[in-house]
């Protein structure tokens, strides 16, 4: 039906067309391969020094966390051994008679790079490496879970609108009404008691699952709202109507037309959500409802650090600095990602 032969030959007629001439000229050197919005974003991001630096730091942390067993093999320590009390290590004492680390700055030495814990003499370097591993991967799990939940709920509410959206909105409000911090503390023992007989010892993996469930249940709302509002505005766009006119199913429209357009807000939100989840998990452990002895955990290090703060302030130093750098870099990274996606917003 279409007859390309009748169409004007592409060569000269294209050049005659004033609006076409400019683009064909400009793109001569680099082959006619368009750059997607994603590629453009990546280019803008690469130009952002802070962003690249922070991305490097963040990746570095994840690599460290992944390779915690390797690093501790290097230092020859592990997070569980009580170097201060174990008779095997009696020939190289790390604690004095009061249970405080021997030596400079919390017992920093060739054996114990970041010093040792007062009273027990556990190796801080190993504890921090393993603790970071626990925290980072817990946070990653929680964040991915609540992002997926939020995206699904937001997509459904935003795309179908009407009554569906109304009820999803009310449920979201309901969950938002919980005072989060209080409920974390109040719910953790409840969730644990629900599944595990209080007489028995709670296994560590189960604590992890409980944290995951509680943070997930109380954390998906922000994402859902963000996705919903984005989808709501996308739904009215004419390209969605064009897809409908061509007969596309709602599922195809959501998948092919809408989802690719919510990727950027999702990614930006992710880079803000992850550090805040890490802080929340640390807070849980700090408050005593997260991980407990002897599981190495970043948050627990702060809890112990607070306990020893008067006698051994150095104990707080390494975990604290590590945390501050990490959260700072992650948030800066979030800003850079946002700026790269939308160069007009911010600053």
């Amino acid at each position, binding site marked *: *039906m*279409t*007859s*390309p032969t*009748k*169409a*004007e030959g*592409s060569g000269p*007629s*294209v050049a005659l*067309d004033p*609006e*076409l001439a400019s*683009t*064909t000229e400009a793109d001569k050197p680099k082959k*006619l*391969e*368009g*750059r*997607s*919005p*994603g590629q453009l974003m990546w280019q803008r991001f690469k130009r952002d020094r802070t962003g690249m630096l922070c991305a490097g730091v963040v990746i570095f942390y994840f690599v460290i966390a992944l390779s915690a067993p390797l690093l501790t093999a290097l230092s020859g320590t592990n997070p569980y051994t009580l170097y201060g009390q174990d008779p095997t290590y009696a020939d190289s004492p790390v604690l004095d008679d009061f249970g405080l680390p021997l030596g400079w700055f919390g017992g920093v030495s060739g054996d114990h790079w970041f010093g040792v814990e007062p009273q027990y003499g556990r190796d801080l370097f190993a504890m921090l490496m393993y603790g970071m591993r626990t925290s980072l991967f817990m946070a990653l799990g929680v964040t991915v879970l609540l992002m997926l939940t939020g995206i699904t709920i937001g997509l459904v509410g935003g795309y179908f609108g009407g009554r569906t959206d109304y009820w999803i909105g009310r449920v979201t409000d309901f969950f938002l009404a919980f005072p989060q911090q209080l409920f974390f503390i109040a719910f953790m023992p409840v969730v644990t008691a629900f599944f595990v007989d209080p007489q028995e010892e709670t296994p560590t993996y189960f604590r992890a699952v409980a944290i995951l469930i509680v943070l997930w249940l109380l954390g998906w709302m922000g994402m859902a709202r963000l996705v919903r509002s984005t989808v709501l505005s996308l739904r009215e*766009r*004419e*390209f969605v*109507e*064009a*897809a*409908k*006119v*061509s*007969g*596309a*199913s709602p599922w*195809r429209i959501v998948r*092919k*037309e809408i989802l*690719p*357009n919510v*990727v950027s807000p999702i990614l930006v939100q992710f880079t803000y959500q992850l550090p805040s989840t890490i802080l929340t998990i640390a807070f849980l452990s700090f408050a005593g409802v997260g991980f407990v002895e002897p599981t190495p955990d970043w948050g627990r290090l702060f809890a112990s650090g607070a306990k020893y703060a008067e006698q051994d302030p150095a104990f707080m130093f390494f975990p604290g600095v590590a945390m501050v750098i990490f959260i700072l870099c992650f948030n800066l990274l979030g800003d850079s990602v946002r700026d790269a996606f939308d160069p007009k917003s911010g600053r």
Partner: protein
Amino acid sequence: MSDNLTLPAQQGPTGTSTETLLAVEGLTKHFPIYGGFPIKRKVGAVQAVDGVDLTVGVGESVGLVGESGCGKSTTGRLITRLLEPTAGKITYAGQDITHASRRQLAPVRSEIQMIFQDPYSSLNPRQTVGTIIKSPMEVNGIEPEGGREKKVRELLELVGLNPEHYNRFPHEFSGGQRQRIGVARALALSPKLIVADEPVSALDVSIQAQVVNLLQKVQEELGIAFLFIAHDLAIVRHFSQRVAVMYLGKVVEVGDRESIYNRPRHPYTHALLSAVPEVAVDDEGEQRERIRLAGDVPSPIAPPSGCRFRTRCWKAQDKCASEEPPLIQLSGNRGGHLTACHFPEEPTTEARDEDVVMDPALKALEDSAADEAPVTKD
């Protein structure tokens, strides 16, 4: 009552349309307005489209013209079934598609396509041009000879774009080029009817003509019927064989191009024609009438009783408020030229003794200007 009178006569004697492709009868769309506290309930309705009758013949191009907000887009969206009609009937090729579901619609879906008003929001920014044009074919499982990519390249060439643009993204194109991509997408399914909703009103004037020419070429070469929506009569003029004029959700006059442009009867059509700028250019030619309306289109939430144009009409009388004028063929009009007016104008566009200037401010301005000329008094 108007139904009997209008429908058989609707088909314009333009020669091109032998059989009816699309017939719309009494098409109505009311958007409910919800309000009240604490329980929301329906407090009214925007009567965006209220009883529109329209036919489009096979291969015919019909213009739909009216001021902003008179329900043109809504009519177009109802026909392409993007909106669910409140009442009325849409018949496509003899098949009632008024309330057809997506699945029921599938066989005719590919035959009715749409070109959108805003070239910036009608293309998905995350898809390449190739994907955009290809996806209607994917949805409908169409496997053209030589593959979809080849077909897309052909379409790009047809609409005057470089086929090498296949892997580009919409943000790399100008508005006019984007609109061409939109045209290519609409053509991908080899449709029989295209609803073009103000396809050029978002474009630069210099590019408008190019796109209209492209559409005209497509219409003539491929024999596609067009419903061309526009807000002024100038653009429709060269494109449409028949023109329907809409005012506040109703068709007030419909007829072949010749009748509408040279022998209009409805006061509103006269006003619209008088607003077409090209009149001012040919000064030495026959003087044309000058009509300036006052005020805005009334709200479609509470349209005027009787004739909806009466609040702005210079010929309005009591009857206009009490009785709704039916859309009928007036004596002296050609077949297919229907007008909804109790007191129609003369079928001419020549200058009248006195300009119709309804806007009091403009009138005062012109009067004072006329007074000032012989200022020799005192």
